């Protein structure tokens, strides 16, 4: 099952190719605009085909990720899903406190919910690998329910960081080795200690 490393790697490749194409296109345009040649405008068929392509790309992206990025469907339906385990995390005075067991022990493939509660400011809850790459994140807003349902499919040890700015005092909010995933066949190679 795809994780954030796979998704972001795909993005890196697709967006780089796209960027090179549009840079080349504008370069080609700039080269030819100073030269004489055909001057007619675009036919309506070309314009409407172009618009149709934009519509397909703009909306198609969301249908594509709904069907290929694993966390989208269960994030949207999380209130209907019964989790295997719920972890409570409290934020107060720029400190992240894990209520209960630490590290949070998770069995491979379990549906776990991280319930983060802020008692003062807006913070962020981010799960990070040992190499600093992000697994997932959500905002932690005071007065709101902040619940992230996640399924881990690789063994590893993960850190938690606040991903939202909460003032200078919150610049380094981190709990190292906060999550431990066990029982999978595969190891997350960026999360091994």
């Amino acid at each position, binding site marked *: 099952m795809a994780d954030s490393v796979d998704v972001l790697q795909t993005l890196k490749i697709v967006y780089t190719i796209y*960027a090179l194409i549009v840079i080349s296109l504008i370069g080609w345009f*700039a080269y030819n605009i*100073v030269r004489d040649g055909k001057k007619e405008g675009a036919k309506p068929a070309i314009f409407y085909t172009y*618009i149709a392509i934009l519509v397909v790309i703009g909306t198609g992206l969301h249908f594509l990720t709904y069907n290929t990025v694993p966390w*989208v469907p269960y994030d949207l339906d999380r209130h209907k899903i019964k989790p295997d385990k719920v972890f409570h995390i409290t934020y107060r005075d720029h400190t992240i406190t894990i209520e209960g067991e630490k590290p949070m022990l998770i069995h491979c493939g379990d549906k776990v919910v991280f319930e983060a509660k802020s008692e003062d*400011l*807006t913070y962020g809850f981010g799960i990070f690998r040992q190499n600093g790459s*992000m697994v997932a994140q959500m*905002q932690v807003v005071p007065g709101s329910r*902040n619940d992230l349902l996640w399924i881990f499919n690789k063994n590893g040890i993960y850190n938690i960081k606040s991903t939202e700015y909460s003032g200078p005092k919150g610049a380094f909010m981190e709990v190292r080795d906060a999550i431990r995933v066990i029982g999978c066949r595969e190891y997350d190679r960026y999360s091994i200690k």
Partner: protein
Amino acid sequence: MGFVKRLMEGYEGGLRDEAMTPMQKIALRFVVIGLLFYGLAALEGMIMRLHEVKPLPMIDESHFFSIMTVHPMVGIFGSSYMIVFGAFLFLTPYLMKKPIYSVKLADLSWKLMAGGTFIMWLAGFLFHYAPLYTLYWPLPVDFKQFNLIGGITYIVGVVGIMVGTFLFTYNIFKTILYTPEGWERQPSWELLKSTLGLEGLLNFFRREKKEHLVPLPIAAIGRGTIDMGLNAIVISSAGLLILIYFLGELFGASLKDTWVDALLYKNIFWWGLDLIADGLVLIFVAGTWYLLAMLISGKDLFMQNIARAALFIEMVVSWTVWSHHLMSDQGQPNILKVVSGEMVTAFELITQGIAVFITLVTLWRARPLKMSNELKFLLGGILGFMLAVPAGIIQADLGMNRVLHNTQWIIGTHVHVAILVGLTMTLYSAIYILLPILTNNTVKLYSQKLANLHFWLHLIGGIGMGAFMGMAGMDGMLRRAIYLNGEYNTYMILAGICGAMLLAAFVIFLYNIVMSFGVRGLIAIYRPAAVQTNEAVLPPKEES
């Protein structure tokens, strides 16, 4: 001619201001101050970049984040708003072929904007007030972290900016709608309907279509100004809310921050704030591209009615897309995330795509064109949005946002490429094309070689910085954080080199402008105009 003499007098005599109208001078006042604030924002960006590579000894967290707080405010309000205000306060009467409603209000606007930005900057510099531009509730009123005087100073600065903005909006609409003294009565309601796109909407259902009363760029200015007014209402209300809490604290009556729901506040605030990024910037830029394309090509705009309709759709879309900023807020209802955050936001790809298409085809029909400064910067601006808008659509997706939100991808690949390459290069193009009109053709560019160097350094620096920030973001680097142990140094050093190219580009441009105008000419911009008129430019027969 010696260097000092040329510096003082400018290239080929520099600016001669005798025949300049008050509006020409005011427009240039806005632009000059806007450029200086751009330099300040660029310098702040470089300080933060250097600190991310190797922590600077004189900068602690509170200082770092106070720079991060004022950096976008100086960049947007002190620079982009100022340049746009100057250009549009001049172009509105110029294109409507009527005098501006009030020269005094226009003059007051730049003073309030410049003064407000400076006071707001002081709040960061002197008092380290650092709630960031997002002002997430209740951080702005967290008195454990921030100094009350700093907070009040910040709000005073914001008030100056907002009052300046409201004066601008009034002056723009009034100039479009009013009847100058001695003129035949103007059809104010019809002009308003045409400006806002209501006539176009009604035409859609009519058999006999009514003609558009205002030129296309005025339609863009009017619709973007609606978003600007809406945005100013929301920012002002947030400022007032924060001020109430400050005053409560000052007089010993601490108010409970839980009286305001943080998520609701975030929704309203982002709805208003987003009207800049996804509203007026896109509308103003599209309108400016159309105007530039017409002026550069000397031809009518291709598919003009589609362009008008797209500007109207863009305005309506901009009111409904705010939720893409709250896709990682789990308290945000799914319907808002999917409909507003994903689906309506995708429309921006279409409306901006239409603007790119129409501008490029309009230019293409006039080939061969000379690769002038205005054309090359216009193409740079178009490229910037072609890169940045799809990056924005990608992050406005439930799957991607979960791993991109608040990373350097957002602020690099999307925001900085949109602002520095897309918006700023469009503004440079507008500056180059307006320069002869604003100066009655008296200023000649000092060095074309320097102009070319400015272009390439800015383009490569801007795209490169966005790219390396984006790569760092995809590797997990957050945007509102400090890294002290060189975690992302490869990317940050490369982004720093590109940032240095941007800064060098600006210094080169500034030098070229100073040498072209001459110091004497630049000072003359701030002296009262010898000609007293509300017209944008003097009619040819009256020119000496």
